[in-house]
């Protein structure tokens, strides 16, 4: 498998704040990799460094084997949308794309065809002639994606592509990413929409405080820690805790609840039998596998600001 994006030991400080603290990242050819992290985790800084907008204090980046440094230009090889999309307000959506086509020296016919295709892919074909200054947030986001898609590049780097989109728009962009990935493209997409990442990416990297805290397939990360949750009456908690620990299971208590979680038990029946033998009868017993959201929250310490 060929590595398309390879970042090693990236460090970046803004004053006293370490935006990246030795981040390593790799994306194999033909894969869709999701970069997850809470606000301020360093996702956008990492993407800015990958496309050469920002220079790392330390570390190295190669894209398709070329070192990204001073003078490196993404050009037609990497389609990128990093941070909030911005446009020339006095130009129409299509003219904003034409600026890039002209800079790349495309002939008129090719430019027209690709502009129409890119606008069509993001459902802006009908409004491509309108001035970009009049676009809604969602339309601007779509135009940003169209800009990244214009060159039909084999590698795409997209920063929060579903930001500002309504639920139908989010589904459209998800379907578009799946379609683009099906065409063999290599895609690195940052997001905080966990369900979208779970559905579109075949590999997920979780970043927190400028470092990678987990990496793997969404299924692998989510399914890594199976446990059994046991809801009991308050009087039985301590006795149940002792009985389960004595059986060699790892036991914990969810804070401020009458719930215990048990790791290492082969199944719920074993736990139920063990507790019955000790004269304890649980109100509820649930076999649970961690979702990506659980893993994310546990690893990043993020609290309830994540969308469902």
């Amino acid at each position, binding site marked *: 498998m060929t590595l398309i994006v390879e970042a090693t030991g990236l460090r970046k400080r803004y004053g006293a704040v370490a935006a990246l603290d030795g981040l390593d990242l790799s994306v194999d050819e033909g894969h869709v990799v999701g970069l997850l992290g809470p606000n301020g985790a360093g996702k956008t800084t990492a993407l*800015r460094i990958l*496309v*050469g*907008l*920002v*220079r790392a204090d330390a570390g190295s980046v190669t894209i398709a084997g070329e070192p990204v440094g*001073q*003078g490196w*230009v*993404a*050009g037609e090889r*990497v389609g*990128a949308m*990093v*941070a*909030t999309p*911005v*446009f*020339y*307000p*006095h*130009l129409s959506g299509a*003219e904003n794309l*034409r*600026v*890039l086509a*002209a*800079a*790349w*020296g495309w002939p008129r016919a090719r430019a027209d065809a690709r502009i129409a295709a890119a606008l069509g892919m993001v459902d802006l074909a009908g409004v491509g002639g309108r001035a970009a200054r009049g676009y809604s947030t969602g339309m601007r986001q779509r135009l940003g994606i169209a*800009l990244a898609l214009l060159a039909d590049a084999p590698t795409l780097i997209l920063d929060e592509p579903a930001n500002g989109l309504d639920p139908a728009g989010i589904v459209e962009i998800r379907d578009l990413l799946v379609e683009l990935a099906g065409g063999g493209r290599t895609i690195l997409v940052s997001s905080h929409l966990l369900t979208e990442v779970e559905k579109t990416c075949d590999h997920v990297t979780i970043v927190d405080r400028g470092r990678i805290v987990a990496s793997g397939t969404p299924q692998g990360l989510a399914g890594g820690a199976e446990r059994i949750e046991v809801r009991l009456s308050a009087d039985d908690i301590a006795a149940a805790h002792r009985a389960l620990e004595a059986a060699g299971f790892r036991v914990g208590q969810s804070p401020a609840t009458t719930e215990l979680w048990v790791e290492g038990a082969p199944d719920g029946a074993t736990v139920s039998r063990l507790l019955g033998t000790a004269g304890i009868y649980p109100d509820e017993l649930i076999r649970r596998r961690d979702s990506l959201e659980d893993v994310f929250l546990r690893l990043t310490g993020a609290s309830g600001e994540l969308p469902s």
Partner: protein
Amino acid sequence: MRHLLAADRVRFGRRRDLWILIALVPVILAVMFVADFNGVTSPPQFDFFMEPPDPVAEAELRAQMLAEWRQQMLVQVPAFAFPASILKVAGNFVPVILLSIYLATALVAGEFEWGTVRTVHLTSSRGRMLAVRVGVVVILIGVVVGIGLLFGAIIPFVLSVEGAPLQRYAAPVPEFWAQLANRLVVLLPFIAIPVLMAVVARSIGAAFLLTLLLFVADAAVTGAPIWSGSPAPWVPAITISGSVSRLIGGDDSPQALLASAAVSFGALLAWAVIPVAAAIARFRRLDLNE
């Protein structure tokens, strides 16, 4: 380079504000030329009365003052006839300088202000992009100056002095091309320095302000009464304002005693090249967090 120029044509082709300014400045140059001409050729009113009244003496005095004015007018009028008229228009450079500062800051700092510098970065090497952008400003200013000079070449043929065609007073202009080059090179620092300020400030307003402050500081350095006894008495001849004064004012300028016109010409070229090179070097290293 050609492709980047084509991209800039798409970028700025629909900037009506720019095109209005570009169309307006040559008109302003033409109006200033005609206003100057009228100022020189319109006889002044001599409103005075003698006490006690003496109509004969008053008439004699008026006639004498009119004759003196006419003599002065006839000395000045050839500067308005073609080809000297072209130098006259090129000498009224303040509107062009203001336009240069505005264009250089708007077209460079605007990319930072809008954040579109990120898109620019994806299309081409930064150094090449900025060099092309400076070229675009030079071309636009060239168009403005060209139209202004064209007005300067045409207008003298429709003006008259005391009923006679102005061109009757036309005289050959020694070193015409050298004088024209002197007047045009004056504009270059007023493009280059705003470009540098735009890259430093990353905002149109701040870049414009920094540019004005720098020119004020330059004028203060030129006028400071510290140079005559210093080891570097030639400094006022190589500042921007000093060089401009030397080239426009010729041998009558205060800087003429300090350096030759060639030195001031070279200084102005340096004031154009060094800031652009510094702007490109800085732009290539910048973190684009816009």
